[in-house]
């Protein structure tokens, strides 16, 4: 059963007055980042999105999350068109986006607070989630008293607090060191194995994409579209060892094969990058 259906999504940004970029040798103040993205995601599936910088991965995630309006096409969640953030969707950002004035516990509670859940229930849920992420005892810490890995755990817990059916993750581990990163990948899979929510995970790392995914979606260089979808047929549950396996190596080569041309194309397009620093 398809949970999310992305059909022919287009997104064009209008630059601010006076700003121009060069596209194919011509100056323009309009930039197309997504040009006809089609993608169907099954219920409970773990999808990773890879693509060169500027291929619109994060924009696509924002559109699916209802945070940005597409210029054309539509996204349906369980058959309903998404126009604004859906209560069934949780979002995790690269920079954690925790509220610095709230403790770890209160940050998780926030997600329930704005949905009108009562105090006792939201505290209980938040405590449970913290312990699920191995953070029991850290309830009263403020974000700046936690390491990056801990902060991102809190952020994931916050996204999961409302029991979402879809979890959108925008390079959530990119700011972490390699060890913490692999630790959190394993942890994410462990928790995902329990709750079986649908995950769309944007990453720059081919290894991460393969390790986590049921399917790796490779995007083209800007303007972004789906170049190829690669099924990852590795057994679950997966642990770190699998990275050393022959099958994993084959996938690595295959994804890189598909990605290489697009990365080269994106490199030539570097004059555009200042306008897309976000």
């Amino acid at each position, binding site marked *: 059963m398809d949970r999310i259906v992305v059909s022919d999504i287009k997104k064009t940004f209008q630059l601010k007055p006076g700003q121009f970029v060069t596209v194919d040798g011509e100056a323009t103040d309009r930039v197309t980042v997504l040009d006809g993205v089609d993608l169907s995601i099954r219920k409970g599936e773990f999808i990773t999105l890879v693509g060169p910088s500027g291929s619109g991965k994060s924009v696509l995630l924002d559109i699916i*999350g209802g*945070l940005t309006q597409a210029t054309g096409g539509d996204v349906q969640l369980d058959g309903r068109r998404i126009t604004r*953030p*859906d*209560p069934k*969707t*949780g*979002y995790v*950002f690269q*920079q954690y*986006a925790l*509220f*610095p*004035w*709230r403790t770890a516990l209160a940050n998780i509670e*926030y*997600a329930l*607070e*704005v*949905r009108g859940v009562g105090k006792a229930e939201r505290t209980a849920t938040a405590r449970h989630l913290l312990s699920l*992420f*191995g*953070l*029991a*005892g*850290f309830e009263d810490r*403020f974000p*700046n*008293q936690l*390491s990056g*890995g*801990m902060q991102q*755990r809190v952020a994931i817990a*916050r996204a999961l607090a*409302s029991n979402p059916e879809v979890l*959108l993750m925008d390079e959530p581990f990119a700011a972490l060191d390699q060890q*913490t990163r692999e*630790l959190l990948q*394993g*942890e994410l899979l462990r928790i995902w194995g329990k709750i079986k929510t649908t995950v769309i995970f944007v990453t720059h790392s081919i290894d991460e994409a393969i390790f986590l995914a049921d399917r790796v979606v490779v995007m083209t260089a800007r303007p972004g579209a789906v170049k190829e979808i690669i099924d990852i047929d590795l057994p679950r549950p997966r*642990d*770190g*060892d699998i990275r*050393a396996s022959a099958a994993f190596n084959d996938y690595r080569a295959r994804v890189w094969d598909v990605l290489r041309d697009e990365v080269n194309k994106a490199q030539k397009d570097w004059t555009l990058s200042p306008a897309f620093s976000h």
Partner: protein
Amino acid sequence: MAYLTEKFGPAIGFHSVAGEVAGPAKVPAVKARGVVQGAKARKRMAQAGTFLYGLPLLGLFFLLWEIAPRLGWLNRIFFPPLSEVLVAWWDLLASGVLIEHIGISLQRAAIGFALGVVVAIPLGLLMGRYALFEKVSDLLVQTLRNTSQFALLPVFILLLGIGEESKVAITFYSSVFFLLVNTISGVKSVDPLLIKAARSMGTSDFDLFRKVILPASIPSIVAGARLAVKSSLFAVIGAEMLAAKSGLGFLIQNSQLMMETADMYAGILTLTVIGLTVNYLLVWFERWATAWKGQSETSLI
């Protein structure tokens, strides 16, 4: 790798979470607290040190104040020795007159400041958040902000009479713009990512103001409030000197007219003490309100 996992596999697998969090984290947690406490103590020592360094010069100033009039370097009628000022101060305090004046001045300043808070924070939230709102109102705000509150005192008196209202008006006017400008800048500097995160969780517009934008702006608002409190204190003294029958400003001005110079200096000293106290209280409040930022960099100045 395989060997390692074979040997430590279950341990790593199970402790992987704990490895970074529960296990060793307990040690750093304790350590961190110790370090923080040490840092706090050191900071307090440093502050005390600064205070001690400053004492001799202040003492010299007071000493000069005491001996200069006595030695005839300064006219004793215009500039009585510190000891006489302190005696006059004690008399004023004992008779209850001083307390009365202090109470009236503080009350005027407090009401004006409170009105400033009530007006400036909601207005600032809107002006900071909605560009159009700011575009429309910015010119008027800048115009008003750059008009001296003392120049407007005659206007306030004409409109509101010589009573309390005109004093409250001038203290309000003196505090509201500090609060407004800082609220606006606080709102504008809220991390857009936090707003995005809040929206992704389905936060309503009202909750966005209440639960995200306002708390995120608190450090900036509190910094503005510090300036606003001082400004409204200064304004009330000025207004009382110009047109009042009570308050510290009146006491100082009136003592000068009556040539009771010791009382005049007693009034001025009182103002200094109030100013210092209020400043310390505000710094303390600012630290308390922004405790989540970690150690505060706020200086006492």
